[in-house]
């Protein structure tokens, strides 16, 4: 049809993704897009992406072909509105006449659009006002453009005047939305909600109203109602990535992880070929979904775990140099394996996360707190304790301190003692085999907990002394022995360990004197 009408260099696309690929590669004067473009994107999303990525200047035309059922959504778009629309069914002549009208209007607004492309918004406002003054017939398109510009410049009073007058004279849906936005921005959220709800009575498919209702409700702290509003918008128009992201964010905040997980999953799917693709969607999906892994033996849970791991794989492939995200991805993989009772894999992923963490330039405290949690989850109590101890030495916010305390408590003291005891046994084995260095290592690990037993500390001193007697006295090692003796403190003479303690103490003093010479 377009070529019959005289167009040349015409490209055609079979879906929204192909359309976006073409728009990214070529400059077009006119884009003619069906609203319904199949599964991945609709015409509105193509328009938003084309304008958002600056691949389609304000002076180019974007025309949506739509059935009456999508008219509320097409006509109501306030931020990214098409230059025109053609309702189906249409004939070649109808298309021709409509195109001529749209092009004529666009040409009359060209100076203002050129100013928008040059980002000179004040000039664009001036030119729109001039058009409004001189050409009554352009009132709707010029007012629409002017309203958007005034909103962009945060001149809400003037924008409100423009929209309010139009609501009185023309009762167009986008003017009602604009009016509500201005009223909200000027500090009257309740009145704005009233206008939006009444607009929805007249135009029940006007999804942008739901978006703003959600935004306003959220600002009023009514986050559950905000979630409901967004769920309604998504039921009508499910293909908008940003809307799915927002629903996910609010549902996550509300603790509704089933809705959050689904919204982020949709955001990943829809965002795959979109300028709104975001690493956040992958991470938030995994965060929401892994909490739902309650029953590792259940097939549904297993599928969910696989989905999370696939999403994390995709993230790692698509964002290979984003160390922060790689860190979180490995952490979430670890958490997923933990939830699926696969400690070995959980430890492997945590170890990957540790490697990435080491590469981070200025990691936030939060990262370390998460690692501590993962250490506890994967039964790596020693590492957890080390990190907790390290964190205790630095300045933390109240929230961080509270979390650290929780983790500290979570770290099971009994498990630590058990572990310390195991290390002590290993040390004893090494000592008996004459492998003093390995024994010292094991005892060092065993004694680093505050729960370490007196016997373990005595063993550690004994191994170090034996080593120094065999090799030569060592200042640092003597210091370590001294620290352990201080920790042990006085031992009662009736204690069965006293003889050993006294003997070691004597040898320690002798080695000290030797090194002093």
């Amino acid at each position: 049809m377009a070529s019959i009408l005289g167009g040349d260099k015409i490209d055609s696309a079979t879906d929204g993704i192909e359309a976006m690929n073409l728009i990214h590669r070529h400059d077009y004067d006119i884009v003619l897009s069906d609203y319904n473009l199949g599964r991945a994107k609709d015409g509105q999303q193509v328009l938003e992406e084309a304008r958002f990525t600056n691949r389609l200047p304000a002076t180019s035309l974007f025309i949506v072909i739509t059935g009456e059922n999508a008219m509320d959504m097409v006509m109501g778009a306030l931020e990214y509105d098409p230059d025109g629309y053609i309702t189906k069914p249409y004939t070649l002549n109808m298309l021709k006449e409509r195109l001529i009208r749209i092009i004529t209007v666009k040409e009359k607004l060209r100076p203002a659009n050129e100013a928008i492309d040059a980002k000179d918004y004040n000039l664009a406002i001036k030119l729109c006002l001039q058009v409004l003054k001189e050409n009554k017939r352009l009132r709707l398109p010029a007012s629409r453009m002017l309203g958007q510009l005034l909103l962009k410049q945060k001149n809400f009073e003037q924008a409100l005047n423009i929209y309010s007058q139009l609501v009185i004279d023309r009762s167009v849906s986008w003017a009602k939305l604009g009016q509500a936005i201005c009223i909200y921005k000027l500090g009257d959220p309740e009145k704005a909600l009233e206008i939006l709800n009444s607009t929805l009575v007249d135009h029940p498919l006007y999804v942008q109203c739901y978006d703003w209702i959600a935004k306003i409700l959220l600002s009023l702290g009514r986050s559950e109602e905000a979630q409901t509003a967004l769920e309604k918008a998504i039921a009508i128009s499910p293909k908008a990535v940003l809307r799915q992201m927002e629903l996910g964010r609010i549902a996550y905040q509300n603790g509704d992880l089933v809705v959050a997980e689904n919204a982020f999953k949709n955001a990943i799917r829809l965002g795959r070929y979109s300028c709104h693709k975001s690493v956040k969607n992958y991470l938030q999906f995994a965060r929401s979904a892994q909490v739902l892994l309650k029953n590792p033996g259940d097939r549904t849970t297993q599928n969910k775990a696989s989905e999370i791991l696939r999403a994390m794989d995709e993230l790692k492939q698509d964002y290979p140099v984003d160390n922060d995200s790689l860190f979180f991805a490995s952490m979430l993989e670890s958490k997923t394996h933990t939830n699926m009772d696969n400690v070995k894999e959980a430890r492997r992923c945590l170890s990957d996360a540790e490697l990435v963490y080491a590469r981070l330039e200025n990691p936030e405290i939060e990262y370390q707190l998460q690692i501590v949690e993962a250490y506890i989850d994967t039964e790596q109590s020693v590492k957890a304790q080390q990190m907790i101890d390290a964190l205790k030495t630095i300045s933390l916010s109240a929230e961080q301190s509270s979390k650290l305390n929780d983790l500290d408590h979570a770290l099971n003291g009994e498990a630590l003692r058990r572990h310390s005891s195991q290390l002590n046994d290993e040390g004893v084995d090494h000592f008996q085999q004459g492998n003093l260095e390995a024994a010292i290592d094991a005892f060092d690990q065993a004694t680093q907990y505050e729960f370490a037993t007196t016997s373990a500390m005595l063993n550690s001193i004994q191994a170090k002394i034996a080593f120094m007697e065999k090799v030569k006295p060592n200042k640092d090692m003597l210091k370590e022995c001294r620290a352990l003796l201080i920790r042990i403190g006085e031992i009662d003479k009736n204690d069965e360990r006293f003889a050993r303690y006294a003997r070691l103490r004597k040898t320690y003093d002798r080695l000290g004197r030797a090194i002093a010479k």
Partner: protein
Amino acid sequence: MNTDYKFELLVAAYAHDLKNQLQALTEQQEMLVVDLPKEYQLKLAPMISHTNKIKEDTLRLVSLYRLENTQQINRDDAWPHDTANQAIESCLLQFPSIIINNKIDNDSQGFYNDQLAQLALVTLITNSVQAGATQISLNCEEHDDDSLTFIIEDNGPGFNKAILDGSISTTKAAGTGLGLHFVKMICKAHLGANKQGKLSLSNNNTGAVARLFLP
């Protein structure tokens, strides 16, 4: 959701799908005709005409559903000259021998639902032809308050007095009077500046006159 509502939705969905399928069929037929020799083109013309008629009827059906179920119809800047042309194009497929003049100024502009106004014009033109008119003219008056009136005049026998009185809706033997009712519904759905659209019928010295006021 009760069963009746589901049933209504189902009917509306089928009608909508039917409308789109018929549009696709019309387009295919029109493309096919261009490639055929003249004698076959003439033979195919009735088929195109019938398809178009079914498409128009289906469109009416869909529009009726929307008029019944929508609080406020979508209106926007629209150009009466183009609306009339679209209606004429559709009617000529149906009645190729009728002369229809679009006398509306190319620069006239209004604020109405283009598709519904077009359907109203098609309905009124069809009524004129079925009443015996051979020539029809379309005109438009723009008013100071930005409202406008479409005027459809024909050279037919004019409206029966009983129709003008409002005591009956049709004079056709098999007529139901639903055509005029449908046009009235479209007019009434147009609300603006404390005014409501309306259909006025009259006769002049050449035939029938229908005036569609859209505020």
